[in-house]
């Protein structure tokens, strides 16, 4: 009858049983240890990256590693300059952000402020569907559908370019931008809108001068999260960015972002060799870059949350 185990519960013994529960003590210790797990794994990742990546930064001075433009991992002696990869990451991220932010924020405003609830509820699962698409599938779509189109439309030698990757990344960062911005807009108190209507504003003026400014920190967090996603995305850029090692000058050049450089190089790298360490050093830079972006996003988001709940 009782949904708990009576034989162990106090119900079976003395009501004021002071019998020490060793089993329970141990379980609570285990629970505490697991509570720390997120910190342990995050620090573990950082530790591994430092340990395997630092040797590369000792061998190649850090400014040469960061700003060198030649990546010859197997020549003798090898040269490790990651500037082309870094610039490639920047290009695809810029293209992705320039496309995804206006479309994503626009869609969020439409869903939160204009569309009837029923329409918004119907669109939501479709956006969630997109966030479930594996990145390799997006890479595949970019490879077979988008890249031939890019090649023909822009008259390029190859359709595998930074712009192709940027467009696919934009699609992949849309779900997070839309949903976080939409939440931020919905959190704006109804009083704000009513007050603005009361002053004779049109609906658009309410949206543009009241809702969007009030939700701005949430929207900027959404943008940061989208940027973080674009920087860290691997499969899509590996498959459609072109993989060229030269320093990319324009987004229409084929290029190799940092994530792709790791993924395509690690299979050939001798364990513990110079290339192995250099790839971990790229991983370290990626880790720190995304950590920075995510920390800011989390900060901004927390401030937004407090804005309308305090007082």
């Amino acid at each position, binding site marked *: 009858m009782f949904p708990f185990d009576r034989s162990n519960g106090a119900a079976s013994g003395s009501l004021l049983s002071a019998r020490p529960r060793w089993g329970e003590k141990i379980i609570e210790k285990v629970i505490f240890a697991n509570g720390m797990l997120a910190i342990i794994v995050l620090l573990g990742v950082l530790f591994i990256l430092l340990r395997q990546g630092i040797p590369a930064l000792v061998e190649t001075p850090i400014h040469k590693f960061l700003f060198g433009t030649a990546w010859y991992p197997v020549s003798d002696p090898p040269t490790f300059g990651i500037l082309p990869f870094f610039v490639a990451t920047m290009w695809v991220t810029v293209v992705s952000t320039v496309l995804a932010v206006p479309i994503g924020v626009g869609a969020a405003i439409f869903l939160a402020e204009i569309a009837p609830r029923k329409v918004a509820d119907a669109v939501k699962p479709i956006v969630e569907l997109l966030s479930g698409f594996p990145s390799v599938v997006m890479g595949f779509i970019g490879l077979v559908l988008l890249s031939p189109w890019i090649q023909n439309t822009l008259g390029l030698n190859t359709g595998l370019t930074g712009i192709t990757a940027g467009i696919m990344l934009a699609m992949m960062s849309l779900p997070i931008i839309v949903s976080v911005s939409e939440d931020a807009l919905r959190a704006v108190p109804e009083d704000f809108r009513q007050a603005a209507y009361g002053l004779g504003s049109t609906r658009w003026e309410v949206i543009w001068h009241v809702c969007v400014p009030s939700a701005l920190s949430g929207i900027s967090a959404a943008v940061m999260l989208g940027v973080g996603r674009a920087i860290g995305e691997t499969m899509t850029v590996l498959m459609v960015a072109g993989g060229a090692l030269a320093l990319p000058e324009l987004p229409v050049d084929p290029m190799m972002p940092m994530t792709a450089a790791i*993924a395509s190089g690690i299979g050939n790298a001798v364990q513990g060799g110079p290339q192995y360490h250099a790839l*971990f050093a790229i991983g370290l830079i990626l880790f720190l870059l995304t950590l920075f972006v995510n920390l800011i996003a989390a900060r901004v988001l927390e401030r937004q949350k407090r804005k309308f709940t305090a007082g």
Partner: protein
Amino acid sequence: MEIKNIKSRYLTQRVAIVILAVSALLVIIPVIGIIIYMIANGYSSLNWEFLTASPAQAGKAGGILPAILGTVYLMLGTILFALPVGIMAGVYLSEYTRANWLTRLINMAIINLAGVPSIVFGLFGLAVFVLGLNLGMSLLAASLTLAAQALAMTITTSREAIIAVPKEYREGSLAIGVSKWQTIRHIVLPQASPGILTGAILAMSRAAGETAPIIVVGAAFLVGGLPVSPFDRFMALPYHLYTVSAHIPGMPGEIKWGVALVLIAMVLFFNMLAGIVRIKARKR
């Protein structure tokens, strides 16, 4: 003057709303388009042989059963490692902490863990599981790697599900003398189980589609026979799709689209399952 002003304000509004509606369409049309296109191109290659046979002629013919099984094992392995610890961490965060610096630190760590690029988890798995624990390029090492990545999700969803259990349930149980852990074990966790299950299914679906980490820790394009031991190298659907579409020249289109369709069908099936569990739980 005044009237003209009003007119132009409404004109601005109309233009703005059209632009916003177009951006919403730009979000959903490609999604629907991609799904329709994938079904149209992929369904002809879906037949019994494709789903139940091993690859032949270096992957250019035959089926993809080893890759499907590999992905299923990976999903199970991931959840086996990520769920129990995720639930316990969720219990800790909802039942045993107060809002202090440690809790804030843990929550920060979870958020950042979720943002670590998947390829970095691959490097982590390579250094720790493949080489450090000497598990080799194997299903086991890959499951552990994906579990480390899934951790942020299982912890967050468990914590939210446990927090959502009404306080009265705990108070009622504690009031009749049941201990804290007994209350959690027999009252709180069963109430939270649909929410925890939703998170678990989503984490599995994520693991099914994850590619970059398993490139690093042991996926192979062609492995003779089906995966038998957790210490074997393995095939997996996302890695298979990557290889057939980006690396093998002359790969027949129906193989590529077939693999893509099977993968996306699996992933979306689990996403939908999670959605159904969530809706059912809410109704209860």
